[in-house]
């Protein structure tokens, strides 16, 4: 039982921290939002830092790192509300490493690691909401080759990605495929989301697909769980920065002749925010440390963690805006963008009510960190 970071992990954190400070100023981010919410040049810089390679084995050009390194990176990206979807490089790198046949690994993993290929998970369907076992996209096989047909929604950077990992029904059950965006029958309609980042509705019409695994639901659950742990860490980073902004504002802004931080009503609210911040950090650690547990234990842990993070992100985000007053609801102020990011993260990989339902359905007689 040890929650200290190693020297290497601290160095990794510092490196990402420095990059965010230098390479991703609020003005730079604003410019990217204006251009559509995704910058491939930025994504390539993140890849050069090695961040897209974290979960990929060394013999496929990766860094062979684990969940704690992923968590450290995502915290720092969250602190800078970075929009380029590094979390999906983690998801796709880990999922292909764990489930794909060797040929598929050799084809995609080195390119994901280097940033040459942006591969994202495209799993959301309109009827599925947050459910992973609901899938209308169909896969068909003829002469040994697969094609898929269907539609996936709110796919991060979906019209900029090079390929997608897509769940589709093959022989009556969910299988996982890789589909290239440039393949026949693939169309992507891109748009900007609430936090300024980019997403797309992606449709497939008899599009050529490469089978990753027939054990698709288990692989998809694994993929989403990596996404949940990454989202939790990203949320912690965004909460940390939101707290910094709020504390600074309360200590600076004066009304009735005194700093806002002298009012007990606000001080107690800050104490409640600090509570949520530390519970969130605790449960983000928990999520990352449970990523390699058995599927049942892992799923239960992710639901618990994402529920707690959802509560914390909502509370901290909303209270921060409230305590800033008018400036908190302007586009000009960075705080409002953190609030939108926190809100969007709550609605990524399952919202808070969804995960409460998951916790509820998965409860056992005993419960604790180790059960």
């Amino acid at each position: 039982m040890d929650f200290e970071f190693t020297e290497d992990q601290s160095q990794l954190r510092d490196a990402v921290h420095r990059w965010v400070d230098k390479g991703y100023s609020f003005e730079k981010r604003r410019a990217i939002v204006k251009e559509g919410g995704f910058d491939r040049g930025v994504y390539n810089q993140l890849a050069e830092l090695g961040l897209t390679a974290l979960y990929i084995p060394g013999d496929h050009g990766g860094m062979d790192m684990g969940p704690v390194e992923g968590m450290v990176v995502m915290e720092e990206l969250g602190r800078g509300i970075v929009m380029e979807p590094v979390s999906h490089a983690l998801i796709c790198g880990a999922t292909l490493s764990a489930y794909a046949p060797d040929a598929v690994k050799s084809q995609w993993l080195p390119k994901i690691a280097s940033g040459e290929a942006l591969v994202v998970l495209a799993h959301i369907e309109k009827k599925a909401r947050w459910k992973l076992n609901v899938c209308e996209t169909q896969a068909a096989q003829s002469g040994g080759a697969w094609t898929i047909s269907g539609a996936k929604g709110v796919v991060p950077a979906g019209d900029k990605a090079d390929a997608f990992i897509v769940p589709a029904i093959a022989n009556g059950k969910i299988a996982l495929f890789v589909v290239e965006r440039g393949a026949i029958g693939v169309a992507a309609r891109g748009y900007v989301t609430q936090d300024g980042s980019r997403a797309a509705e992606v449709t497939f019409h008899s599009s050529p697909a490469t089978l990753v695994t027939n054990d698709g639901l288990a692989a998809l659950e694994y993929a989403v769980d990596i996404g949940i742990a990454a989202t939790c860490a990203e949320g912690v980073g965004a909460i940390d920065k939101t707290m910094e902004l709020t504390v600074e504002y309360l200590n600076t802004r004066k009304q009735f002749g005194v700093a806002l931080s002298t009012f007990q009503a606000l001080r107690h609210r800050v104490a409640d925010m600090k509570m949520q911040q530390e519970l969130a950090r605790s449960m983000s650690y928990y999520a990352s440390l449970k990523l390699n547990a058995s599927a049942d234990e892992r799923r239960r842990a992710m639901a618990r963690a994402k529920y707690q993070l959802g509560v914390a992100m909502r509370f901290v985000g909303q209270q921060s805006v409230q305590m800033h007053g008018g400036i908190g609801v302007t586009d000009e102020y960075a705080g409002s963008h953190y609030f939108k990011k926190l809100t969007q993260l709550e609605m990524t990989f399952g919202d808070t009510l969804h995960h409460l339902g998951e916790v509820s359905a998965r409860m056992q007689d005993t419960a604790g960190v180790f059960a």
Partner: protein
Amino acid sequence: MDLAFTPEEQKFREDIHAWVKDNLPQDISHKVHNSLHLSREDHQRWAQILGKKSWLGYGWPKQFGGPGWTAVQKHLFEEELALAGAPRVIPFGPVMVAPVIMAFGSPEQQQRFLPGIASGEVWWSQGYSEPGSGSDLASLKTRAERKGDKYVVNGQKTWTTLAQYGEWIFCLVRTSTEGKPQTGISFLLIDMKSPGVTVRPITMLDGGHEVNEVFFDNVEVPAENLIGEENKGWTYAKHLLSHERTNIADVNRAKRELERVKRIAKSESVWDDVRFRDEIAKLEVDIVALEMLVLRVLSAEKSGKNSLDIAGLLKIKGSEIQQRYSELMMLAVGPYALPFIKEAMEAGWQGDYVGAAYAAPLAPTFFNMRKTTIYGGSNEVQRNIVAQTVLG
């Protein structure tokens, strides 16, 4: 980073687990598991079982006869005891006054008082709160006047937990009215059999007798019972508070009580009611998150690198959780939470229960638990402390 305890720590836990299984009397754990009334004799019997093993002062260093355990070992010990249904160690002696005597008492005081605390023979009470001094403890007025080789104590303490059993009481008393209120307070050990000490019960909202008023009327206390220096008592008391760290969250007991919430919800069929079950699910997440917070504090202590100064958060969350599980148990039994039969909270009562036997103590326990957000520094005071660390 690693969630798992070391093999040595696991082994330690297994040893404690086996020992508790063999040594915790079942009639006592039955009471704890069902929120039934624990008598003085129950508490003393268990304290002396622990005392024989030198485990009543389980947080004590070896030089004072304790086991010298690490923070993690103490946590595991507390967890195994709590899950098995052991009563909470009455903290006033071994957890509260003993560390002060060790740190600030004279060798004579250490030899005189520590053995009785370690063995569980002497029952200690805590004399802090006064009618006019609750959250603002430093305003306390109970006076101790030095007359020759004695102090003469006059005043009143209140909310004194289980003082009806107390043989000794450690008190904060006013020895000076000069300067800041904090600088005129001394730490005095008083024999409760002394002439002029009167204990009067306060009946609480659950009908129980858990706290008391303690009156001091010209009570003569030998000057040798003063801990450390006169007017330094506030510093010593703060030292005492710093010894209450992760323990304050009581997360291990919460894990046990969550199991009980689930058992009761199942036998009352509200387990299948989505709205009710979701409330249990929220409590489960709260408890796991609190446990992670506790483990983070332990890890920080173990590494010695970063201290994690979040005792206020642990107190707030821990007490809210205690209230919530007692509330959910009460709600789970529905209308049969309402009949109030005081005798039904005694083990072995042979009368006629109105509802299920397990339902009888649930509402009184819920009422009793309201104290948790008030005592030990109210949660509002805790929020002031937390805000101070964040905002300055």
